[in-house]
């Protein structure tokens, strides 16, 4: 008995400690215990517009695109969790997005402004660009000047790692490139192994440029090479056709070359080149794959209806299944029918996400096999396909910080009213149940800590609908206690001894509490699964609240009771 009591108390303290720790770490990070939604605390306000500088799209197209984007953006934000965004169409072709608790424009841009555009393009043979490599090199030299390239090459050769910023500075002055890759932090990349690299490149060079052989100085060599073949010297032959490898440390440089308009101009008319969006490790080295692609996409995101990740049980493969619109399916069937054995690249925002090989003709439904990789990769790809299917790129027109839609005065008032309401509950419980009521209030305090801890732990956002969920679950927590106490009273009235009455009371109240809580929990989970936005916020707090109420009513109250009853004899009375 004593030992089980001790176990109980330790467990409760542990759970409390966990919640407290989550609350504390949240408080440390963001300065508030629980993240509040836009309706309670304000956040970012963004106005997005279809990015169509050349005026290609008709007004109807733009309205259409905005309508689809609304859904996509909502999905994209919903996938992040329970932040309840306001996504609202304005006029014909604009979108207002309001994000709670985000006052950092950079992060907001990451969330919605990702002008992600999904495209499917055919992968072409490497030979399609081989002839153009010389022209690209010459275009780079002509644009940037041999001297600055030589200086850059010397910097590389002298084993100083030019971070991405240094490269940009060297080449373009202080002007920043239009797209800085946020995923790749140059500081965290491994130190380049320069001697090996230059040796390797030296061999390559011997075959091509006999004149350079005489140069002994490695730095000089690198400089000359950079001045002569700035782009093609960065490319390594890959195993597969249609792609090159670029050492990860050269990636920024190669990309900045590729993005030069002069370079784009000398590429073959129907060809474009794009990097894989993530670095890949191969044999101890980290590479970026550079694909040779058809310039025109044959399908864009608007034709994609759905995508989901599953596991093929038979071969234990992670696969992503996707579904296209009817028109998309026709085009897809036509293209894949002609290109069995070729590869297709899926591009998000100009970067290749995946480049699977076509096994057979694919119509409206297809699947991408990812091999024996873990499911996370498949889920990520499905998410990209689903969320990235923006029909047109969007541009952020305006970003501002907004105050809470409820207004601070209403929130203060509501808080005060809520606290007074809770005091009423405490009063009723203690007047009606005496000392037992005090135990109940103690248990309810534990409940409050658990719920807040749960919200903090899940990083959930508290909104007005969320508060409604909390009120309901507080009500159910009180109700559970009332059920138990009423039952104990009934048992006492039937003449049972104190200890028996308590045991019976808890035992008999159990089924009602379990059934009521599980039914509500099922409802909450379904609302979470199928609802969006406000419905989800409600479901999250309700689920957390129910689990906490379950634990407090059946475990914490019981334990408090055990402590209370410890010194009592069978003839003592109960303050209930």
């Amino acid at each position, binding site marked *: 008995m004593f030992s089980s009591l001790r176990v109980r108390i330790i467990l409760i303290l542990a759970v409390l400690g966990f919640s407290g720790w989550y609350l504390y770490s949240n408080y440390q990070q963001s300065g508030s215990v629980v993240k509040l939604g836009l309706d309670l605390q304000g956040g970012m306000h963004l106005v997005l517009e279809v990015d169509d500088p050349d005026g290609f799209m008709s007004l109807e197209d733009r309205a259409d695109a905005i309508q689809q984007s609304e859904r996509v953006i909502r999905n994209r934000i919903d996938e992040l969790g329970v932040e309840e965004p306001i996504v609202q169409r304005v006029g014909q072709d604009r979108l207002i997005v309001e994000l709670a608790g985000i006052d950092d424009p950079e992060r907001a841009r990451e969330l919605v402004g990702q002008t992600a555009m999904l495209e499917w393009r055919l992968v072409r043979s490497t030979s399609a660009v081989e002839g153009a490599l010389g022209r690209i090199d010459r275009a780079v030299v002509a644009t940037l000047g041999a001297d600055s390239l030589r200086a850059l090459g010397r910097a590389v050769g002298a084993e100083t790692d030019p971070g991405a910023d240094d490269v940009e500075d060297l080449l373009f002055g202080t002007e920043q490139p239009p797209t800085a890759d946020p995923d790749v932090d140059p500081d965290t990349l491994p130190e380049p192994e320069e001697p090996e690299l230059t040796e390797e490149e030296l061999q390559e060079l011997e075959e091509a440029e006999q004149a350079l052989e005489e140069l002994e100085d490695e730095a000089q060599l690198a400089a000359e090479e950079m001045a002569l073949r700035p782009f093609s010297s960065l490319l390594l032959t890959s195993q597969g056709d249609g792609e090159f490898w670029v050492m990860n440390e050269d990636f920024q440089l190669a990309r900045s070359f590729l993005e030069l308009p002069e370079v784009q101009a000398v590429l073959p008319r129907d060809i474009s080149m794009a990097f894989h969006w993530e670095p890949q490790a191969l044999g101890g080295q980290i590479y970026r794959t550079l694909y040779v692609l058809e310039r025109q996409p044959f399908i864009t995101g608007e034709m994609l209806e759905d995508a989901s990740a599953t596991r093929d049980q038979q071969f234990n493969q992670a696969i992503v299944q996707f579904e296209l619109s009817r028109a998309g399916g026709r085009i897809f069937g036509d293209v894949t029918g002609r290109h069995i054995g070729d590869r297709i690249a899926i591009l998000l925002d100009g970067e290749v996400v995946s480049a699977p090989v076509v096994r057979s003709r694919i119509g409206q439904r297809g699947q991408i096999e990812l091999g024996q990789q873990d499911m996370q990769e498949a889920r990520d790809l499905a998410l990209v396909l689903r969320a990235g299917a923006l029909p047109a790129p969007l541009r952020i027109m305006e970003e501002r910080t907004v105050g809470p839609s409820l207004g601070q005065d209403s929130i203060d008032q509501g808080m005060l009213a809520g606290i007074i*309401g809770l005091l009423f509950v405490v009063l009723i419980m203690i007047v009606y149940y005496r000392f037992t009521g005090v135990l109940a209030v103690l248990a309810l305090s534990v409940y409050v800590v658990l719920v807040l801890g749960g919200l903090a732990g899940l990083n959930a956002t508290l909104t007005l*609908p969320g508060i409604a969920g909390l009120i309901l679950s507080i*009500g159910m927590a009180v109700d559970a206690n009332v059920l138990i106490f009423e039952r104990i009273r009934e048992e006492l009235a039937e003449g049972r001894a104190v200890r028996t009455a308590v045991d019976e009371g808890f035992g008999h109240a159990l089924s009602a509490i379990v*059934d009521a809580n599980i039914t509500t929990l099922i409802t909450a989970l379904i609302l979470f699964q199928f609802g969006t936005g406000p419905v989800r916020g409600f479901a999250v707090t309700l689920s957390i609240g129910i689990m906490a109420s379950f634990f407090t009513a059946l475990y914490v109250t019981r334990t408090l009771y055990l402590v209370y009853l410890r010194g009592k004899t069978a003839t003592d009375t109960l303050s209930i």
Partner: protein
Amino acid sequence: MQFWIFRNAKFPFLNWRRKAYWVSGVVLSLGILAMVVNVFAIGNWQSYGVDFTGGTRIVVELPEGVVEGDLREALGGVEAPPITRFGGEREFTIRAPLEEGVESEETAERIQAQILASPAIPDFEMLQIEFVGPTIGEELQQQALLAILLSFLATLIYLAMRFEFRFGVASVIATVHDIVLTLGFLALFRIEISLPTVAAVLTIIGYSLNDTIVVFDRIRENLNKKGGRREDPLKLINRSINEVLPRTVLTSGTTLAVLFSLLILGGAVIRDFTIVLILGVVIGTYSSIFVASPALLEIQERWGTKEEAEKRKRKKARPKKEEAIPV
């Protein structure tokens, strides 16, 4: 000394059930009538707020010293459209809901006149007027509806497993009754359907279900006691409701205490929200006694209990049984 509420009460609740049917029927029809009238009067069965319909978004800049409350007061206090602080300290957004046959400009002019008429706001500037779409579009509404329907199904299955099938049916009947009643009330008083009111309706579903299950749990317990199956179901259900009556009153009472303090002290903005919740608690308590429990009885009277159904099944299945013996 102990307080007791409704101890050993013996109210013949189920004997009043025909009266309750009348009450429910009349109130339900009134609500549905209000919905129909609304369709003709305001063009929609409910008075949808700006969250659903979209409307006019107006950004105003107020002079130093004027607070949000002044603006809300100027625009009609409780009836004021949602107001948000926007950008700078003195800029505010007003989202006025769409009105049938009224142009955005007219709405903006009306709001401008209202602010001008306010003594608390000496001077202000209109920064922006534009038409905005709804934050809760069709798709969101459909998804929410689907979620609610699925949750009914899940409740039905769970209760059929834990209790009996008829308990599940009765509780879903009670929940639907509560939702329609609440929607009818909203339509009757043209309370604006906004995000908070939707949340409140969801809360009502949860509360009503909880209350119903507590009563059903006691019915189940009494049924499973010795002699419970042979007792007159009407008496048994009446007894069960009376046995949990102290709990019902106490729980509803504490919840109402919280809600009334929110109603009185919580300010104008959450008033609709609180009213819907108070209504929900009252309806939920009423329906667990006067809708769910009678429904249980009616189902039993028409289609019998689980035992009777099984008995019938066994009779039918008997000839086949011998074939099914495994070899």
